[in-house]
């Protein structure tokens, strides 16, 4: 197996090659060729991932050590890729969902010019490459390279339509917020190096005894700061909704397959550290839950179809972090997987809607799309059911597992999380009903234009819908089916199973029934409320939610403005007068000095002789009197 696994470097290698070819020859390659290369370079790693997955399933993990990457003093960092249960699963999710999104993009982006089409696919491939590197890295450094890579790619793709200033700002915002998180990651990295003298997962996680308990708490907290940046948790979540500026497939890629799951992956990977830091775990659980509720309430009042989905992503990520925080790492990973399926589905379906509406994203101007867009409607419905957690769709299993884990941990957490789940169901179905039910509220022209999307877009939707339906069957809870929780079993080499049953089977059953019934009630309420659309001016708490709790404004006031003012001060006084003054002054001095010195070069022999004599005089003085 080890020899066979020597070729795992091919997995990240293909997207990198794709990136280079498509990126460098974007002016030469035809669109068809670009699409084939772009998709093919993601399909190949996907096939490899399946193979790796099967190998790993049959036993064990493997670290492929390729070459010495950094060697500084006693610190040796090798360029090593790791294949084990966790990375194999993530590889499967990343490459699989990315491939579907790539296929979808070939149609969605068809109207772009050849050059921009190539640019788009090269960025997408680079994105997949970075993400693969992130999940396959066998040490924190390689992971960090991938970590930074996805940050860069998200910047590039969010700012894909770079002629729009607002979009550029959104890209900047995403990048800056990610940088804040990355700083935390980086400091944690240094801390680990200084304490453990190594960055490879194997060393660090097997020698946790070298860390004192306060070390572990600080390291895990700093890593968590990194995760909040990448995975959009409070307080660094506001970039994600703004990241909607990119084309819809990009949003799908960021939200479902890559990028935002990086934080979850990193914490799940570092579970050996986190399980030793109860303080951090509690903080993660609380932050995750707070994010989940906050984002859910904001999503209630958003009118942009992508914004709603974005906040729903933030909210779902909150759930994942809740799961991680209460120690249910495999459950968190499970939710990453199901979420990848249904969120990709929802985004791509939304993309289909936007495509049909000619770029319109406001759900107040939609309505009644059900008739014209059957497949999109059905797949979107699948996604909504899955995210709301109605059995037997995938979301039910993963979300319920999270709720159960929260219940085991703390009843209050459970209650709040359940409330959040109900909110999720409510806003998702609000979205569904507003967009697809009722009567059309857009312009005549748009109505005329309405059409079902081409097969290149609907087929990925159908595949994802099937996955969103069936993706949960790998993690059926024990009480419903003996040995149904295959995922936890699969991940057990990486994430130790804590099999202490705190909750009796009857309670667990009851909880499931309660949540399902409540969700169904909420959906009925949403149907009642939104089956007919009537415009109302939001006020009071509604307005507060519509404006996203004014968090952006708060950040603007508290952080951005003072920083800007400080920067303006530096620019005006330090830069303009001091630094420029010195620089220009030196220039002017040299200029002036040369002008004066030039006069010496008069060409008059007499002057030269005089200078010669004076110099001689000087030399004599130095020679005889000063050199003692």
């Amino acid at each position: 197996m080890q020899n066979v696994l020597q070729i795992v470097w091919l997995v990240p290698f293909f997207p990198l090659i794709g990136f280079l070819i498509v990126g460098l020859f974007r002016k030469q390659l035809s669109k068809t060729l670009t699409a084939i290369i772009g998709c093919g370079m993601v399909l190949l790693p996907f096939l490899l991932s399946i193979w790796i997955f099967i190998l790993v399933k049959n036993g064990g993990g493997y670290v492929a050590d390729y070459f010495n990457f950094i060697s500084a003093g006693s610190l040796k960092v090798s360029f090593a890729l790791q294949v084990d249960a966790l990375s194999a699963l993530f590889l499967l999710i990343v490459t699989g969902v990315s491939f579907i999104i790539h296929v979808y993009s070939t149609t969605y982006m068809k109207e772009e010019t050849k050059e921009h089409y190539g640019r788009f696919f090269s960025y997408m491939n680079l994105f997949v490459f970075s993400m693969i590197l992130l999940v396959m890295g066998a040490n924190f450094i390689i992971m960090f390279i991938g970590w930074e890579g996805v940050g860069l790619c998200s910047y590039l793709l969010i700012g894909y339509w770079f002629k729009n200033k607002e979009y550029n700002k959104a890209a900047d915002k995403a990048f800056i917020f990610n940088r804040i998180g990355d700083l935390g990651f980086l400091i944690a990295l240094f801390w680990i190096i200084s304490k453990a003298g190594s960055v490879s997962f194997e060393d660090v996680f097997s020698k946790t005894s070298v860390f004192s308990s306060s070390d572990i708490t600080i390291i895990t907290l700093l890593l968590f700061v990194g995760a909040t940046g990448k995975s959009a948790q409070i307080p660094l979540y506001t970039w994600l909704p703004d990241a909607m500026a990119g084309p819809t497939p990009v949003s799908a890629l960021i939200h479902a397959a890559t990028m935002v799951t990086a934080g979850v992956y990193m914490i799940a990977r570092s579970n050996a550290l986190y399980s030793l830091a109860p303080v951090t775990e509690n903080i993660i659980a609380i932050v995750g839950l707070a994010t989940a509720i906050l984002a859910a309430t904001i999503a209630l009042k958003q009118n942009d179809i992508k914004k709603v989905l974005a906040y729903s992503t933030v909210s779902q990520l909150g759930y994942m972090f809740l799961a991680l925080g209460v120690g249910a790492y495999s459950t968190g990973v499970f939710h990453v997987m199901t979420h990848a399926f249904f969120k990709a589905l929802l985004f791509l379906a939304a993309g289909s809607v936007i495509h049909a509406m000619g770029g319109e994203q406001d759900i107040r101007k939609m309505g009644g799309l059900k008739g014209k867009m059957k497949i999109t409607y059905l797949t979107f419905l699948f996604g909504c059911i899955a995210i709301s957690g109605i059995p037997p769709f995938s979301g039910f299993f993963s979300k319920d597992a999270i709720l159960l884990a929260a219940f085991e941990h703390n009843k209050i957490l459970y209650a709040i999380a359940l409330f959040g789940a109900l909110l999720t169901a409510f806003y998702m179905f609000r979205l569904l009903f507003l967009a697809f039910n009722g009567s059309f509220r857009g312009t005549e022209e748009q109505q005329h234009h309405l059409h079902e999307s081409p097969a290149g877009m609907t087929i990925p939707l159908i595949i994802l819908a099937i996955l969103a339906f069936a993706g949960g069957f790998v993690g059926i809870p024990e009480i419903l089916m003996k040995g149904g929780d295959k995922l936890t079993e699969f991940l057990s080499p990486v994430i130790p199973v804590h099999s202490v049953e705190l909750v009796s089977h009857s309670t667990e059953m009851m909880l499931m029934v309660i949540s399902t019934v409540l969700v169904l009630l909420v959906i009925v309420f949403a149907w009642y409320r939104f089956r007919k659309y009537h415009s109302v001016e939001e006020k009071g708490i509604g307005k507060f939610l519509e404006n996203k709790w004014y968090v952006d404004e708060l950040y603007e006031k508290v952080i951005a403005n003072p920083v800007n003012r400080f920067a303006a001060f530096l620019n005006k006084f330090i830069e303009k007068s001091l630094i420029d003054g010195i620089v220009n002054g030196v220039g002017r001095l040299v200029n002036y000095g040369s002008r004066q010195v030039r006069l010496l070069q008069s060409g008059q022999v007499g002057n030269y002789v005089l200078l010669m004599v004076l110099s001689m005089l000087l030399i004599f003085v130095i020679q005889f009197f000063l050199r003692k």
Partner: protein
Amino acid sequence: MPINYYIFLSLALFAIGIVGVLIRRNAIIVFMCIEIMLNAANLLLVAFSKMHHLQQAATQASAGTDGQIFVFFIMVVAAAEVSVGLAIIVMMFRNVHSIDINFLNRLKH
């Protein structure tokens, strides 16, 4: 007479030569001043030669010859220099009808 006297005499002659070079613009006078400086050096060489001879005569009969030979060679070089220098002055005068050294300002370019 002590050697100091000769040193001071030579220095004085040399300084006069330098001042002459500096204050005059006539190329021929400048040349003459250079000759004065050369002669100051010659005088000093001869004086040192004599001093050397007086010190070493007991062990080496020909001590101090070298200094005088040097003076001889300096005269040779001076004669050659003067012949070429005067030729240049003649030619300069032929071209610009002046021997003012301030006309020799092509060095600027």
